[in-house]
């Protein structure tokens, strides 16, 4: 009996607040927009029994998905989200790997402190960390003042409200997600393998590429997915740091819902975004599983 309660309570909670809402999104994505409250038809009317259910089913169609293909805005938004997420993942890797590598090489007694310094920003509000860049990247902001002072530029650069600012924002906020898994992989590495490689005639650089990088692959892959997956649906960064020409699908969904109040199209946008995410999510899960098997 107790066992039943133990299973049933979290199970029912997740069914009611995760699975059912998701099915509602799926249903509304197949419905038509209407001038009513809530603003879509058909409504499922169970009081009419089977006939009501059939009428409900026949009212569903793929019109909203077809609509997504006709308007440039949507596929451009998906493509540019993919591009931004992909490029910023690569940039985060390029910034994160040397940091993780540095921590793994640092003297033992420094490591807990260094790790805490990586984790601390993660506990600090995401919104505040994005906001901090608004004052720096401004036309009159500190970065421009600094560059003008150095004489590198003669006129302030426009960085805020461009895609460049979005890239900086993503790299900055997701950097800890890249550093931690790579560090975890590097830390487990057996140092004597590098010495063996060098004894066998490898230069330090080729030992790095032939030994260190392959051995930290699982951490690199995990870090990349941990950045790529949330970056693809990102809303806060493009809306605060990006400009009007920054197209990201999270922002489009938000505007479709809150500004245009087109719930069926917003739902269809969400479903397509999920379909795009399924592939990286499955790959990520597989990577995690392989890693667990390798350890266990």
């Amino acid at each position, binding site marked *: 009996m*107790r*066992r039943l309660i*133990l*299973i049933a*309570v*979290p*199970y029912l*909670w*997740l069914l009611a*607040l*995760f*699975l059912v*809402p998701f099915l*509602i*999104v799926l249903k509304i994505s197949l419905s038509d927009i209407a001038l009513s409250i*809530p603003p879509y038809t058909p409504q499922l009317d169970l009081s009419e029994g089977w006939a009501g259910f059939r009428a409900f089913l026949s009212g569903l169609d793929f019109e909203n998905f077809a609509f997504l293909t006709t308007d440039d805005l949507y596929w451009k938004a998906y493509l540019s989200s993919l591009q931004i997420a992909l490029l910023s993942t690569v940039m985060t890797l390029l*910034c994160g790997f*040397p*940091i993780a590598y*540095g*921590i793994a*090489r*640092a003297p033992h007694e420094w490591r*807990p402190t*260094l790790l*805490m*310094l*990586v*984790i*601390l*920003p993660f*506990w*600090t*509000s*995401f*919104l*505040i*960390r994005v*906001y*901090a*860049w*608004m*004052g*720096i990247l401004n036309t*009159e902001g*500190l970065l421009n*003042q600094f560059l003008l002072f150095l004489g590198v530029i003669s006129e302030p650069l426009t960085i805020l409200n461009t895609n460049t600012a979005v890239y900086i924002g993503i790299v900055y906020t997701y*950097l*800890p997600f890249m550093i931690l898994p790579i560090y975890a992989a590097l830390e487990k590495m057996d140092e004597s393998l590098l010495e063996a490689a060098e004894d066998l005639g490898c230069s330090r650089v080729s030992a790095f590429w032939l030994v260190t990088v392959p051995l930290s692959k699982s951490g690199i892959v995990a870090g990349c997915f941990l950045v790529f997956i949330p970056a693809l*649906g990102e*809303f806060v960064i493009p809306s*605060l740091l990006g400009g009007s020409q920054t197209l990201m699908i*999270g922002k489009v*969904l938000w505007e479709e819902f809150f500004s245009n109040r087109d*719930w069926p199209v*917003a739902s269809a946008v*969400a479903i397509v*975004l999920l379909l795009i*995410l399924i592939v990286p999510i499955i790959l990520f*899960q597989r990577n995690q599983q392989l890693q667990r098997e390798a350890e266990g």
Partner: protein
Amino acid sequence: MRRFSWFNATSLTLGFAFLYLPMVILVIYSFNASKLVTVWAGFSTKWYAELIRNEAFLDAAWVTLRVAVFSSTLATILGTMAAYVLVRANRFPGRTLFSGMIYAPLVMPEVITGLSLLLLFIGIGLDRGVLTIVLAHTTFSMCYVSVVVSSRLTSFDKSLEEAAQDLGCSPFDAFRLVTLPIIAPAVISGWLLAFTLSLDDLVIASFAAGPSSTTLPIKIFSAVRLGVSPEINALSTIMIAIVTVGVISASLISKRAAVRQEAETRNAERG
């Protein structure tokens, strides 16, 4: 042991400068006397005074705090139960769906989670307010709690629990007296994680909140959209200070606990 090279030192210095400079600048400029956030006009704490007088922010902070306490507590209870089920109950109908529902919210884009919950709340006619935000936050943070707790449960020796039951404990007592004290650090860090996730969340709260229940992130977001303001800098500084003190003291406490445990084991071995 390999040498800690100049390359390592440079990348660490640059890396941590990149991570911390923006926040340091934010903190410094919160003490700026000028309304213009980019021009330094001398030290002043006037923005903190204005912040305390700003009732809208205080109200939002109060809503946020209540939501965070309730949702993280609920999420810890549900998440611990879910972790226990995931690790200990190997076979029951729908187990795959259950573990899927635990992991899916972790990778689900926030906009989709928020949208789907809002559509549910409207569908069942639930008025949006503090309650709906608590429900939404509990749902996604219980999944984080259950991941944290289940990793601790996996590494823990099941025979201790079985010994307690052999000695006459009911399964519930065995959980309360043996399992819970051992997994307590994970449960506490799960609670802290759920608490900060709730404090932080903008996107899901925006969907789940009604007009009468604005949380602090929603308030900050709408203020920040209009541009940088010294008041927000002051507010951010307070939040950064709270988090820093919290994280550092939590790590000191866990370090001391580890040292004490080590000493106890050594004493026990010397016996």
